[in-house]
């Protein structure tokens, strides 16, 4: 142990493969691998080969020795939550191969594509809000409002259509304006939840990403809707409430995501 040295980028012992002992350990764990739920099995494939094997063996070891089923579930959830950080750490040599500085010493100048990696917060890395609450930008207010409206439309729509003729053209209208069916109502709710995700869970940058994606989706819906390709959603061709709603929604979202990313 005393002869240990820090492994470095490109070190074949670290990156080229796990050691013999680790391979034996991983092999010895096969009978216990059934303890690991399917939700964690794919994670191994996300890591560099050597890391994946070592991580897998350690997860199996930890779960095999945890007798209490409640505690084991808690640990599985913990492993699941750690996946983004684990993948990040495993694939970022600039982060992996530097020593932690003593407390009180400033951040390093570790850079990745011109950005100081060490100073990035989890928010900046993943676009998911971390330890903060509340709306921050104008376009997040837009996302919140439009998300709530769209979910309301979906709920009102289901009150009209029920779950019959789920993907058929129907004669049901929301507020007498927007023709709908069950599939269309489901789409309303899913899109509304995406908007709420952007407003309440993601960072402003993450919300902008959601708005860009939804703008493209709404534009496609509007254009193909005008041409009559959306009978699956109970949308008629030509000028009608649905197509106009999609077009207006796309333009408004585009405006907000372009000019509204301010506090």
């Amino acid at each position, binding site marked *: 142990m005393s002869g240990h040295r820090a*492994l470095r980028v490109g070190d074949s012992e670290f990156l080229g493969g796990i050691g013999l002992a680790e391979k034996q350990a991983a092999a*010895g*764990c096969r009978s216990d691998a059934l303890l690991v739920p399917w939700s964690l099995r794919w994670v191994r494939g996300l890591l560099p080969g050597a890391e994946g094997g070592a991580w897998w063996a350690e997860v199996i070891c930890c779960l*095999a020795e945890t007798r209490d089923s409640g505690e084991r579930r808690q640990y599985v959830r913990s492993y699941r939550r*750690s996946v983004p950080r684990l993948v990040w*750490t*495993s694939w970022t040599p600039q982060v992996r191969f530097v020593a*932690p500085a*003593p407390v009180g010493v400033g951040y*390093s100048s570790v850079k990745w594509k011109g950005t100081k990696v060490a100073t990035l917060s989890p928010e900046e890395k993943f676009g998911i809000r971390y330890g903060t609450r509340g709306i921050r930008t104008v376009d997040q207010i837009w996302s919140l409002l439009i998300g709530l409206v769209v979910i309301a439309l979906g709920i009102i729509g289901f009150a009209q259509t029920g779950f019959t003729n789920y993907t058929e053209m129907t004669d049901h209208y929301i507020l007498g304006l927007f023709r709908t069916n069950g599939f269309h109502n489901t789409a309303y709710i899913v899109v509304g939840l995406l908007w709420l995700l952007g407003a309440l869970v993601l960072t402003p940058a993450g919300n902008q990403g959601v708005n860009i994606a939804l703008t493209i989706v709404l534009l496609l819906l509007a254009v193909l809707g005008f041409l009559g390709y959306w009978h699956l959603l109970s949308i008629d061709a030509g000028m009608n409430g649905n197509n106009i709603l999609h077009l207006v929604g796309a333009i408004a979202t585009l405006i907000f995501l372009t000019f509204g990313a301010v506090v």
Partner: protein
Amino acid sequence: MAGLRMTVGVLAVLGALLDRPDTELYGLEIVRASGLEPGTIYPILQRLRAAGWVSDRWEDGELAHTEGRPPRRYYRLTTEGRARAIHALQHGRDRRGLGRLLAPPRLPAVPSSEAEPA
């Protein structure tokens, strides 16, 4: 060498390893000693290992097999890591908000030549 921020999690893992500096600890022991979850400590140990603060070894497969469990991966602080960890914890204890987590640390004596890590 460039450094990273010393997080509460890193300090907790270092504290757990320093509590028994002459003993190798495996993952589950560190989980219980640090109060952190296994998904949290694994990336931390990965970083500390890559930085040379912590060394690791896999347990002999035969021994584990006779005890009817998978082999464990044992971790311990290296000489350099021990000195640096003591230094980090002494500073970390003074920081607001960390006292509850870190106090009272049972810090072993630091060899005089290693008291101030480079």
